């Protein structure tokens, strides 16, 4: 099946000829996202510049029976923007204006194609702060963040994207425009529709404007790097910090394999012989930062930290944080294919989960690097393999299956932040149960009776 002549003609009318692409090169370049081993050619790629254009495209999709996949920067890790049959990729990156920073209400109004890092920069100019900072912060779009409900390095203290979305403008799959939410901190008028769209992975509507909550920028910040001889010591340090009623903004850990890859890339003097390192950051009032960081260092030493390095200035702190953000990509230095997951467990179960992951890797003779957000129980076990070896890939999938089951058994989830997309839909029913999945399906049908918007993602 391919696009009808009417569909082609109308697409060109709606977005203009320069914004409709379908050469073999363009189709290849929009066939993938950051997910390993998934790709499919779309029929066409369109670059939208306004909400009315998106509305017209979606109406056309219903009339001419083609599918639409919204796409920001294509950095998601669950196959969320992989095209399906007879589909058009709708790219939002040209809708990239920061419409308003409102210091009196502490809000920002932005278009979906704005890069996440730019929002924090713009907020910073007013002494404000946009906390969610996914590893991909410099390239991910805020639209993609909302659709995936992305987390980040500061999740422990500051929460995830959902905690900062006050309101949305959305084009529904039928082409209608819907606005939900307000600048008010308190708003209980009807169902909280915005919450339905957050994390909906581009299946319920195309987000065209986002009203975000901002915070005052913390006056002080201290970044520390603790080195451990054993993973369990790092895990216990984390538990102990939290037991002492300290909520640092960042508690990230890297295992030995990941440390080596990151150091190979970033060359910032990470200890290559350590079993684990913990990147810790606390921010807030200078006095509190002083007190908390001293306590954290003490606790790390109490759990046999070999060394705790304190970043001497903002540049060194940023160097450490960006090295951590590069962890996933840096692991690709070890092998042609890296398959990473984001199984998440309650913090108290971290030790058990890591031990299980290591055993599973051994059992299936797989090389693995583990890193992740220790503070919020969100792990990133990453298998280092080669997609040209189908037998190995099969072992990887079996291992992941067992890891997901274990995460669920420990009271955790199959995905903490990357979303279900195509990659994990086989595991969703085990996690959400039949009733949960039925509700999701009927919601999808209510919003998208023509099944035109990103169908086949999350569930079939």
């Amino acid at each position, binding site marked *: 099946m391919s696009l009808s002549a009417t569909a082609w003609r109308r697409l060109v009318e709606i977005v203009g000829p320069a914004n409709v692409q379908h050469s073999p090169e363009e189709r290849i370049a929009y066939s993938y996202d950051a997910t390993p081993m998934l790709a499919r050619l779309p029929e066409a790629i369109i670059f939208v510049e306004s909400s009315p254009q998106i509305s017209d495209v979606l109406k056309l999709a219903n009339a001419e029976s083609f599918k639409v996949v919204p796409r920001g920067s294509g950095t998601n890790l669950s196959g969320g923007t992989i095209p399906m049959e007879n589909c058009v990729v709708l790219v939002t990156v040209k809708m*990239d204006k920061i419409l308003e920073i409102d210091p009196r209400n502490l809000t920002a109004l932005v278009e979906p194609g704005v890069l996440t890092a730019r929002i924090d920069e713009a907020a910073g100019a007013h002494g404000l702060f946009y906390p969610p900072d996914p590893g991909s912060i410099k390239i991910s779009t805020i639209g993609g963040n909302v659709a995936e409900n992305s987390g980040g390095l500061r999740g422990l203290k500051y929460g995830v994207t959902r905690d900062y979305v006050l309101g949305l403008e959305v084009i529904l799959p039928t082409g209608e425009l819907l606005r939900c939410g307000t600048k008010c901190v308190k708003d209980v008028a009807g169902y909280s529709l915005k919450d339905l769209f957050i994390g909906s992975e581009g299946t319920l509507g195309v987000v065209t404007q986002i009203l975000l909550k901002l915070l005052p920028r913390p006056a002080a910040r201290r970044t520390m790097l603790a080195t451990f001889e054993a993973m369990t010591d790092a895990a216990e340090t984390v538990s102990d910090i939290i037991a002492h009623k300290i909520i640092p903004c960042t508690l990230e850990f890297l295992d030995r394999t990941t440390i080596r890859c990151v150091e*190979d890339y970033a060359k910032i003097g990470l200890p290559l012989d350590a079993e684990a390192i913990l990147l810790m950051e606390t921010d807030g009032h200078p006095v509190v930062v002083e007190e908390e960081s001293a306590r954290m260092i003490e606790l790390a030493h109490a759990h046999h930290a070999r060394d705790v390095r304190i970043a001497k200035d903002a540049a060194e702190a940023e160097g450490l944080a960006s090295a951590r953000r590069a962890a996933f*990509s*840096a692991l*690709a230095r070890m092998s042609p294919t890296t398959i990473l997951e984001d199984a998440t467990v309650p913090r108290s179960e971290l030790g058990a989960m890591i031990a299980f992951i290591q055993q599973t890797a051994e059992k299936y003779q797989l090389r693995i690097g583990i890193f992740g957000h220790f503070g919020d129980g969100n792990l990133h076990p990453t298998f280092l393999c080669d997609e040209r070896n189908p037998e190995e890939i099969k072992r990887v999938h079996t291992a992941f299956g067992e890891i997901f089951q274990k995460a669920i058994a420990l009271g955790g989830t199959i995905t903490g932040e990357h979303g279900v997309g195509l990659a994990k839909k086989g595991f969703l029913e085990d996690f959400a149960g039949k009733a949960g999945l039925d509700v999701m399906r009927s919601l999808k049908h209510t919003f998208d009776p023509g099944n035109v918007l990103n169908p086949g993602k999350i569930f079939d």
Partner: protein
Amino acid sequence: MSGPNLLQQLDYSVLQQCIHCGMCLPTCPTYEATKHETSSPRGRIALMRAVADGRLAPNSPQFADEMYFCLGCLACETVCPAGVNYAEMIEYARAEVESGGAKAGAQRGLIRAFALRWLFAKPHRLRWIARFLRVDEAAGFSRAFVLLLPRRLRDLRAQQPKICDKFSFDLIRETESPRTPHRYRVGLLVGCVQDVAYSDVNRDTVDVLLANGCEVFTPRGQSCCGSLMGHNGELELARKLARQNLDAFPLGRLDAIIVNSAGCGSFMKRYRHLLPDDPRVKLWDEKVHDIHEWLVRIGIQAPRESAQPTTRVTYHEACHLVHGQKISQQPRELLRAIPGVELVELPEATWCCGSAGIYNITQPEMSQALLERKVKHIAATDALIVATGNPGCIGQIRYGAQKSGLDIKVVHPITLLARAYRGEL
């Protein structure tokens, strides 16, 4: 398709190294300008891989265009956590384009044959033509380049650097020894553009090396480093030139081979990829040093204190120093060591100025946009001098400053250092 699929000859693991994470996108000037995945590093690599897989025809015009729209600035390589070797990929991809004939056209073919295969292939030809052109006052160096692409004639002329009165071999003896017993013995590459347009920088380089106890050997049999050909799809020719250089420099007797042009240095440090079977290349690649890198490594003599008031100097990072060779702090260190220099940081110092080899000729619009952006940042620093370690950047920024009426000197950092040693600063 004519000839073998060159991208298929490239080790597949080099292409596979890219995990399409997208971390490189915001650092790519062509992606930033277009917001098109096809004009991003990740997109280009995907296209190359498609050609290698046989999923995309190598003679497709858009493929060719994208490969040449790329600046080759290697910003993507610096930022890529996965260690992707973009430099090698783009060379193969362009060679593929040339062998596939997608960019063929009678005129372009003739121009390439003249410029890449004839003019730059033998240093004496370039010098000869350059000398000849000098006679014609108004023409300047531009004519040789104008032949490359006759578009935008007038603009181009202004853009190309002036030919020097004397070329390097007139200014530099084959062997020059420091007054005190030498600490090191080094070879010097004079380059091609550097040689005819900036031979004074070569002289300055020799002076600075002498002042720091290095005996300098400048073999007459050396040739162009091959980067111009390598970056433009003429890999065979690049190999030939590389071999000539391997023959010309007596590796065993030299502690280092010094290069003062970022583009040449970046290419010469990768001869092992170009000539994997030549037994000399490993040692060669180890011995090639950028001048800044070498000086900081051996430690320099402090220049005499200056009586002049301090001058604000800013530093533009040539792509093939910062991204191609990861040399970023050394030039700053040298500049700071010069009495009377107040170094001020240039915003976006590592963003390409649009010179990019012959890019300013082949892609004038994108090149101009980048140049304007660069000049705007330079103007904002209030510096009187901008230092940069690559002849292409010097020419490009001089042109940009002149066009926008900005009164600023554009010089090689080594020229400033040489002047300081001579007591001219």
